[in-house]
């Protein structure tokens, strides 16, 4: 008997059972040496499989919600299932990056085409819906589309890892999954907000602007974007936000460009208010200040603001309200709603410190204005 294993208690060296046990242990040790990595991969695959099933449930929930809402709102004889399934497979191809010159304008064009196409699809599904409902439906379908894409990408790498038996594909997937699942859960929660037209965390910038412009005359300055001239602390503020209460982000970059050009650059400062990703450990609803253009998304609107403010050397200030990805796309939580008043106080302090009486400023509330009027 091998000396190492003979130390192990087996009930006597001559017993058959003892031999069986010895052999079983040796086989297990050898198997661990040879198939260790495979066992590890197998266990990771099980974890990925479990998350993938969860993603599939979320994706199916999104699809079902979309179909039932369209049936409810559309009130048509036609079954929307096929149309919804087609929508969920929609792909937008980005512009060529080999020649970066003019990429922003090409990207803007593609985004406009995509937006128009989405709106047309929604109108075809729910022809009797008003503009607010159409915008909310579009947002809801986009959330369902995001869930479908996440599910399909994760499934792709899962199947690929399984087919190629590559530990490294599976390992990367397994390591990233907690973050991906958080994002998917956020989109899943967003379905409720978009279906019912409830304000979401991302809309806190729009809420701040809505509070400032309430009771003042508004006019359209860009597509889906409103502006009101408001007197704050003796300064003239051009306050702008996306047109609510439907799900909409508007064109804040274009609007700021218009205002700067109309006033021939006689703007002393621009203040951009937006929701910002909080770091773990920070409290949701914390207000932070900074400089720069606080506009998320693909970058077209941010670029336009940077261009127009650079032309007249206008300083751009940012007021940020901290929240995590889950809060950004789900129904606005109390702390974030209350942070809007704290942000207004920051804006007033900024105006007093950085501008003089009689100056003109731009205040832009960024974000999806779903569930927020003006």
């Amino acid at each position, binding site marked *: 008997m091998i000396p190492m294993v003979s130390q192990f*208690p*087996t*009930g006597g060296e001559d017993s058959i*059972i003892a031999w*069986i*046990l010895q052999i*079983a242990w040796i086989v*297990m040790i050898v198997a661990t040496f040879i198939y260790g990595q495979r066992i590890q991969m*197998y266990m990771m695959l*099980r974890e990925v*499989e*479990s998350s*993938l*099933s*969860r993603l*599939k*449930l*979320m994706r199916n*929930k999104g*699809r079902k919600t979309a179909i039932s809402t369209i049936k409810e709102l559309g009130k048509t004889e036609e079954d929307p299932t096929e149309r919804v*399934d087609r929508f*969920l497979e929609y792909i937008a191809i980005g512009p060529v990056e080999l020649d970066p010159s003019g990429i922003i304008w090409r990207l803007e064009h593609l985004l406009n085409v995509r937006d128009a196409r989405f709106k047309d699809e929604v109108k075809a599904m729910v022809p009797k819906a008003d503009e607010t409902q159409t915008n909310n439906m579009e947002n809801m379908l986009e959330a369902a589309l995001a869930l479908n894409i996440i599910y399909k990408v994760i*499934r792709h790498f*899962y*199947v690929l890892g399984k087919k190629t038996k590559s530990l490294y594909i599976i390992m990367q997937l397994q390591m990233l999954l907690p973050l991906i699942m958080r994002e998917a*859960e956020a989109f*899943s*929660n967003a379905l*409720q907000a978009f279906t*019912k*037209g*409830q*304000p979401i965390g991302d809309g806190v910038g729009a*809420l701040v602007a*809505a509070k400032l412009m*309430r009771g003042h005359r508004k006019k359209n300055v860009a597509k889906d974007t409103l502006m009101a001239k408001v007197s704050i602390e003796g300064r003239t503020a051009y306050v702008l936000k996306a047109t*609510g*209460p439907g799900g909409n982000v508007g064109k804040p970059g274009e609007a700021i460009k218009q205002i700067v050009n109309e006033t021939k650059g006689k703007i002393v400062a621009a203040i951009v208010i937006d929701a910002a990703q909080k770091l*773990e*450990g*920070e*409290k*949701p609803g914390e207000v932070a200040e900074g400089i720069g253009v606080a506009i998320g998304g693909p970058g077209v609107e941010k670029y336009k603001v940077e261009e127009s403010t650079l032309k007249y050397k206008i300083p751009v200030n940012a007021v940020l309200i901290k929240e995590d990805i889950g809060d950004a796309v*789900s*129904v*606005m*939580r*109390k*702390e*974030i*709603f209350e942070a809007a008043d704290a942000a207004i106080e920051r804006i007033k302090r900024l105006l007093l410190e950085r501008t003089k009486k009689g100056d003109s400023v731009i205040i832009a509330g960024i974000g999806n204005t779903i*569930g*927020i*009027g*003006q």
Partner: protein
Amino acid sequence: MGEVGPSERRISSFLFIIILVALGLSLVAFYQAVIAYGSEEFSLGAWFVLIGFMGVALLTYMLLQTRKRTFKLPIQAQRVATTILCQKCGFKNIRDFEQGDYVFKETEGCPKCNEKMMIASIYREAEEKGKD
């Protein structure tokens, strides 16, 4: 949306073999423990009981892993409150969100002063455990 998802098989052959090996080892170990206790070799018996329990633990873990897939989606509808405020007398009414509500929407007259009221806020109270 035809597709190939994660394997629908409840238990794979690889897992089945591991479970069988663990079960066999545990049974042998428990049998040996009984023999050892019978011949009053208590420390040896304790060793076999330990090995037996290790096998059972491995078995249970494997079985739990296979059952893990039958969970339900634990996402619940969030409770959303709408606050309606009378701007004249300050009367406040908090109720559940209703379809069509939006912030700054004008609503019914105030029960105190009959002035038009307005939706001042719509938010959810975060219930998630340990969430900052």
